[in-house]
Protein backbone atom coordinates (compact mmCIF):
# COMPACT_ATOMS: atom_id res chain seq x y z
CA UNK A 1 0.00 0.00 0.00
CA UNK A 2 2.80 2.35 0.87
CA UNK A 3 4.25 1.87 -2.59
CA UNK A 4 1.03 3.06 -4.19
CA UNK A 5 0.89 6.15 -2.03
CA UNK A 6 1.41 9.40 -3.84
CA UNK A 7 3.39 11.70 -1.59
CA UNK A 8 1.69 15.04 -1.30
CA UNK A 9 3.45 18.35 -1.11
CA UNK A 10 3.45 20.05 2.25
CA UNK A 11 2.11 23.13 0.42
CA UNK A 12 -1.39 21.71 0.79
CA UNK A 13 -1.00 21.54 4.54
CA UNK A 14 -2.08 24.29 6.93
CA UNK A 15 -0.31 25.72 9.99
CA UNK A 16 -1.67 28.61 11.91
CA UNK A 17 -1.47 30.51 15.15
CA UNK A 18 -4.78 32.28 15.68
CA UNK A 19 -6.31 34.57 18.29
CA UNK A 20 -9.94 33.79 17.51
CA UNK A 21 -12.04 30.65 18.03
CA UNK A 22 -10.75 27.66 16.03
CA UNK A 23 -13.15 26.22 13.43
CA UNK A 24 -12.55 22.45 13.37
CA UNK A 25 -14.96 21.74 10.51
CA UNK A 26 -13.12 24.09 8.17
CA UNK A 27 -9.87 22.27 8.93
CA UNK A 28 -11.41 18.86 8.39
CA UNK A 29 -12.81 20.01 5.03
CA UNK A 30 -9.36 21.24 4.10
CA UNK A 31 -7.64 17.89 4.59
CA UNK A 32 -10.45 15.78 3.08
CA UNK A 33 -9.99 14.41 -0.44
CA UNK A 34 -11.36 11.61 -2.61
CA UNK A 35 -8.32 9.36 -2.45
CA UNK A 36 -8.51 9.29 1.36
CA UNK A 37 -10.57 7.00 3.49
CA UNK A 38 -9.71 8.18 6.97
CA UNK A 39 -9.39 11.38 8.95
CA UNK A 40 -8.20 11.40 12.53
CA UNK A 41 -8.52 14.60 14.52
CA UNK A 42 -7.20 15.72 17.87
CA UNK A 43 -9.00 18.49 19.73
CA UNK A 44 -7.23 19.78 22.83
CA UNK A 45 -9.36 22.10 24.93
CA UNK A 46 -9.24 23.90 28.24
CA UNK A 47 -10.06 21.71 31.24
CA UNK A 48 -11.98 23.12 34.19
CA UNK A 49 -9.27 22.05 36.61
CA UNK A 50 -5.49 21.70 36.84
CA UNK A 51 -3.79 19.63 39.54
CA UNK A 52 -7.00 19.70 41.56
CA UNK A 53 -7.49 23.48 41.41
CA UNK A 54 -10.39 25.03 39.59
CA UNK A 55 -9.16 26.88 36.53
CA UNK A 56 -10.61 30.32 35.68
CA UNK A 57 -9.05 30.70 32.22
CA UNK A 58 -5.76 30.25 30.37
CA UNK A 59 -3.42 32.44 28.42
CA UNK A 60 -1.16 31.14 25.68
CA UNK A 61 1.78 32.98 24.21
CA UNK A 62 4.24 31.89 21.53
CA UNK A 63 7.53 32.71 19.89
CA UNK A 64 5.36 32.98 16.82
CA UNK A 65 7.77 32.80 13.90
CA UNK A 66 9.71 29.92 15.45
CA UNK A 67 6.52 28.14 16.51
CA UNK A 68 5.20 28.21 12.93
CA UNK A 69 8.55 26.93 11.69
CA UNK A 70 8.44 24.05 14.16
CA UNK A 71 4.86 23.22 13.20
CA UNK A 72 5.96 22.97 9.56
CA UNK A 73 8.87 20.78 10.59
CA UNK A 74 6.46 18.45 12.37
CA UNK A 75 4.30 18.20 9.25
CA UNK A 76 7.35 17.48 7.09
CA UNK A 77 8.35 14.69 9.48
CA UNK A 78 4.79 13.34 9.40
CA UNK A 79 4.88 13.08 5.60
CA UNK A 80 8.24 11.34 5.81
CA UNK A 81 7.25 8.84 8.49
CA UNK A 82 3.63 8.06 7.61
CA UNK A 83 1.63 7.42 4.41
CA UNK A 84 -0.65 10.40 4.96
CA UNK A 85 -2.22 12.89 2.63
CA UNK A 86 -2.79 16.26 4.30
CA UNK A 87 -2.20 17.86 7.67
CA UNK A 88 -3.74 20.86 9.44
CA UNK A 89 -2.31 22.11 12.74
CA UNK A 90 -3.77 25.19 14.38
CA UNK A 91 -2.94 26.56 17.83
CA UNK A 92 -4.77 29.40 19.50
CA UNK A 93 -3.02 32.18 21.46
CA UNK A 94 -4.24 34.76 23.95
CA UNK A 95 -6.95 34.24 26.53
CA UNK A 96 -8.99 31.01 26.39
CA UNK A 97 -12.02 30.15 28.48
CA UNK A 98 -12.91 26.72 29.87
CA UNK A 99 -13.94 24.32 27.11
CA UNK A 100 -12.36 26.33 24.30
CA UNK A 101 -10.06 24.55 21.86
CA UNK A 102 -6.39 25.46 22.21
CA UNK A 103 -5.06 23.12 19.54
CA UNK A 104 -6.70 21.25 16.68
CA UNK A 105 -4.96 18.76 14.42
CA UNK A 106 -6.49 16.94 11.45
CA UNK A 107 -4.74 14.30 9.37
CA UNK A 108 -6.12 12.54 6.30
CA UNK A 109 -4.76 9.32 4.86
CA UNK A 110 -5.84 6.46 2.60
CA UNK A 111 -5.71 4.10 5.60
CA UNK A 112 -6.50 4.60 9.25
CA UNK A 113 -3.27 3.34 10.83
CA UNK A 114 -1.19 6.10 9.29
CA UNK A 115 -3.77 8.75 10.19
CA UNK A 116 -3.81 7.69 13.86
CA UNK A 117 -0.03 7.37 14.14
CA UNK A 118 0.63 10.67 12.42
CA UNK A 119 -1.95 12.62 14.44
CA UNK A 120 -0.55 11.33 17.68
CA UNK A 121 2.99 12.04 16.55
CA UNK A 122 1.90 15.60 15.75
CA UNK A 123 0.45 16.44 19.16
CA UNK A 124 3.19 14.61 21.09
CA UNK A 125 5.92 16.42 19.15
CA UNK A 126 4.12 19.78 19.31
CA UNK A 127 3.98 19.57 23.08
CA UNK A 128 7.71 18.87 23.31
CA UNK A 129 9.16 21.15 20.67
CA UNK A 130 6.93 24.08 19.68
CA UNK A 131 7.72 27.29 21.61
CA UNK A 132 4.30 28.01 23.08
CA UNK A 133 3.64 28.75 26.76
CA UNK A 134 0.52 28.38 28.83
CA UNK A 135 -0.31 30.39 31.93
CA UNK A 136 -3.08 29.06 34.14
CA UNK A 137 -5.29 31.53 36.00
CA UNK A 138 -7.07 30.50 39.19
CA UNK A 139 -9.32 32.42 41.56
CA UNK A 140 -6.28 33.17 43.74
CA UNK A 141 -3.44 33.66 41.30
CA UNK A 142 -1.73 32.38 38.20
CA UNK A 143 1.08 29.98 37.36
CA UNK A 144 3.03 29.08 34.26
CA UNK A 145 2.32 25.46 33.33
CA UNK A 146 5.21 23.18 34.07
CA UNK A 147 5.99 22.26 30.48
CA UNK A 148 8.72 20.22 28.87
CA UNK A 149 12.27 21.11 27.92
CA UNK A 150 12.67 20.68 24.17
CA UNK A 151 15.57 18.47 23.13
CA UNK A 152 18.58 20.53 22.06
CA UNK A 153 21.85 19.62 20.38
CA UNK A 154 24.32 18.72 23.16
CA UNK A 155 27.22 20.72 21.75
CA UNK A 156 27.84 23.02 18.81
CA UNK A 157 31.05 21.10 18.18
CA UNK A 158 29.15 17.94 17.32
CA UNK A 159 26.54 19.80 15.29
CA UNK A 160 26.78 19.97 11.50
Amino acid at each position, binding site marked *: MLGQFKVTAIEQDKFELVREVIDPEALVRLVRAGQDGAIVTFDGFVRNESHGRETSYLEYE*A*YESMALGKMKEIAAQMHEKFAIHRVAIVHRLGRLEIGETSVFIAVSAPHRGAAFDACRYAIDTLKRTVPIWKKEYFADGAVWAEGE*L*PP*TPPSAKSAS
Partner: protein
Amino acid sequence: MPSIRVKVLFFGRLRELTGLAEEMGELPEGATLAQVFERYAERYPRLAGFRNSMVVSRNQEFAAWDTRVSAGDEIAFLPPVSGG
Protein backbone atom coordinates in the same frame (compact mmCIF):
# COMPACT_ATOMS: atom_id res chain seq x y z
CA MET B 1 37.71 42.85 20.62
CA PRO B 2 35.20 43.98 17.97
CA SER B 3 31.58 43.81 19.06
CA ILE B 4 28.51 42.57 17.21
CA ARG B 5 24.84 43.32 17.52
CA VAL B 6 22.27 40.58 18.05
CA LYS B 7 18.57 40.52 18.81
CA VAL B 8 17.72 38.92 22.17
CA LEU B 9 14.25 37.68 23.12
CA PHE B 10 12.75 36.39 26.38
CA PHE B 11 9.55 34.35 26.69
CA GLY B 12 7.14 33.14 29.34
CA ARG B 13 8.34 33.29 32.91
CA LEU B 14 11.75 34.51 31.76
CA ARG B 15 10.16 37.54 30.13
CA GLU B 16 8.11 38.19 33.27
CA LEU B 17 11.21 37.91 35.42
CA THR B 18 13.34 40.30 33.35
CA GLY B 19 10.49 42.55 32.27
CA LEU B 20 12.24 42.40 28.93
CA ALA B 21 10.58 41.01 25.82
CA GLU B 22 13.18 41.94 23.25
CA GLU B 23 16.27 44.09 22.82
CA MET B 24 19.24 44.62 20.54
CA GLY B 25 22.29 43.46 22.49
CA GLU B 26 25.92 44.31 21.88
CA LEU B 27 28.28 41.40 22.42
CA PRO B 28 31.95 40.62 21.88
CA GLU B 29 32.51 38.73 18.61
CA GLY B 30 32.83 35.00 19.16
CA ALA B 31 30.74 34.94 22.34
CA THR B 32 28.90 31.71 23.04
CA LEU B 33 25.21 31.53 23.87
CA ALA B 34 26.23 30.59 27.43
CA GLN B 35 28.20 33.83 27.66
CA VAL B 36 25.26 35.80 26.31
CA PHE B 37 23.12 34.28 29.04
CA GLU B 38 25.68 35.12 31.73
CA ARG B 39 25.59 38.77 30.72
CA TYR B 40 21.85 38.86 31.23
CA ALA B 41 22.14 36.87 34.46
CA GLU B 42 24.45 39.62 35.75
CA ARG B 43 21.89 42.23 34.87
CA TYR B 44 18.94 40.14 36.19
CA PRO B 45 20.37 37.96 38.99
CA ARG B 46 17.17 35.90 39.39
CA LEU B 47 17.68 34.57 35.84
CA ALA B 48 20.67 32.48 36.96
CA GLY B 49 18.47 30.01 38.82
CA PHE B 50 16.70 29.09 35.58
CA ARG B 51 19.83 28.11 33.64
CA ASN B 52 19.06 24.38 33.94
CA SER B 53 15.34 24.65 33.23
CA MET B 54 15.46 26.53 29.97
CA VAL B 55 16.77 26.21 26.45
CA VAL B 56 18.13 28.69 24.00
CA SER B 57 17.52 29.16 20.30
CA ARG B 58 19.62 30.81 17.63
CA ASN B 59 17.84 31.98 14.49
CA GLN B 60 14.74 30.03 15.53
CA GLU B 61 16.51 26.70 15.97
CA PHE B 62 17.20 25.17 19.36
CA ALA B 63 20.94 25.48 19.93
CA ALA B 64 23.70 24.14 22.16
CA TRP B 65 24.99 26.53 24.82
CA ASP B 66 28.48 26.50 23.32
CA THR B 67 27.23 27.77 19.94
CA ARG B 68 28.99 31.00 18.93
CA VAL B 69 26.84 33.94 17.92
CA SER B 70 27.24 35.97 14.74
CA ALA B 71 26.24 39.51 13.91
CA GLY B 72 22.53 39.81 13.26
CA ASP B 73 21.61 36.58 15.03
CA GLU B 74 18.23 36.28 16.73
CA ILE B 75 18.71 34.66 20.12
CA ALA B 76 15.86 33.59 22.38
CA PHE B 77 15.76 32.26 25.93
CA LEU B 78 12.93 29.78 26.28
CA PRO B 79 11.39 28.20 29.36
CA PRO B 80 9.97 24.65 29.13
CA VAL B 81 7.28 24.67 26.46
CA SER B 82 3.66 23.98 27.36
CA GLY B 83 1.59 24.33 24.19
CA GLY B 84 -1.13 21.90 23.25
